[in-house]
């Protein structure tokens, strides 16, 4: 068993055990809208620096964004796409 550092607040997702997961999620959830914006900003910065802002990037950086966009829009339109289903019972 690996011992993970310190308090629950300072751990990243990969270091949280399943037992502590709900508490960790509650701890990390944004309290004010400002926090949510900060989280989104930090996430984008991380993604941008890792996949796009490099000297020799690949197609992955933008392709992953497009794939995520496709998936997200599919999820949003699912209630309408339900009508095109072929079977009656699932």
């Amino acid at each position, binding site marked *: 068993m690996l011992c993970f550092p310190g308090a629950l607040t300072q751990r990243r997702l990969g270091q949280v055990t399943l037992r502590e997961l709900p508490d960790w999620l509650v701890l990390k959830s944004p309290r004010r809208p400002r926090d949510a914006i900060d989280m989104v900003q930090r996430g984008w910065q991380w993604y*941008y620096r890792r996949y796009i802002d490099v000297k020799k990037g*690949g197609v992955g950086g*933008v392709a992953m964004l497009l794939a995520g966009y496709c998936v997200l829009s599919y999820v*949003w339109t699912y209630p309408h*796409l339900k009508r095109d289903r072929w079977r009656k019972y699932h």
Partner: protein
Amino acid sequence: MSFNILQTCARLHYAFCAYLPSHVCPLLVTANALKSSGPLGAGLVQASRSLQTSSQSLAPVPPLPEKGGKTRHGIIPEELFQFLYPKTGVTGPYMLGTGLLVYMLSKEIYVINHETFVAASIGGVFIYAVKKFGPQVAAFADKLNEEKVAKAQEVKDLAMTSLTQAIEEEKKEQWRVEGRSMLFDAKRNNVAMILETNYRERLHMVTNEVKRRLDYQIALQDLHRRMEQEHMVNWVEKSVIGQHHTSKESIAKCITDLKALAKATQAKATV
């Protein structure tokens, strides 16, 4: 048939995604986003660059990483494969993907309709275009980057050479300053020489003037004496000639008398 706003927007999103145009535009977007700041993160690049306004803004910016995070087949990050490797080996993630796909198809979470074929064809064209033109676009973008870097490097090199030249010239000037004392010595010597020359000139002038005045006085005295002498000689001659001497003895007597007189006056003068 109640479409709310969200569903309409989402429908448009999905339609846009499904009808993603397959001509050059998205590839350029891809290339630009890959190599430069890109339209996707353009506004937010400024946010990332705002770090330079912090207290360490004068330090050189760290260089960009050479390669980004690895992805397999373009859209799946390599981390997933690494994560599943210890437990499921190499084929784990592929089995996971197949299982998920089959599950979604069978439960009709993913519905097959006309848009499936549209998406499939667009996806196929996109993949073909990336595979075929990817390297060329990458080389082109690399060339653009290199040109930018070369230009900046040129400016930097120019600045460096001019600055080193300025440093050398400054050092030379400092070396020249050391000779300043010699320069002042030479100037001081010059001034002393001029003063000396002047002094001597004036000395000469004084001597000459004094000599001239003294010569004048001497000449005056000579003139006096000569005139007295001549006058005396003329008077003696005139008086002797006026006496009408008849014989040689009287003339000889006159001459001896005159000589004795001269001797007497000379003796009186020396006394």
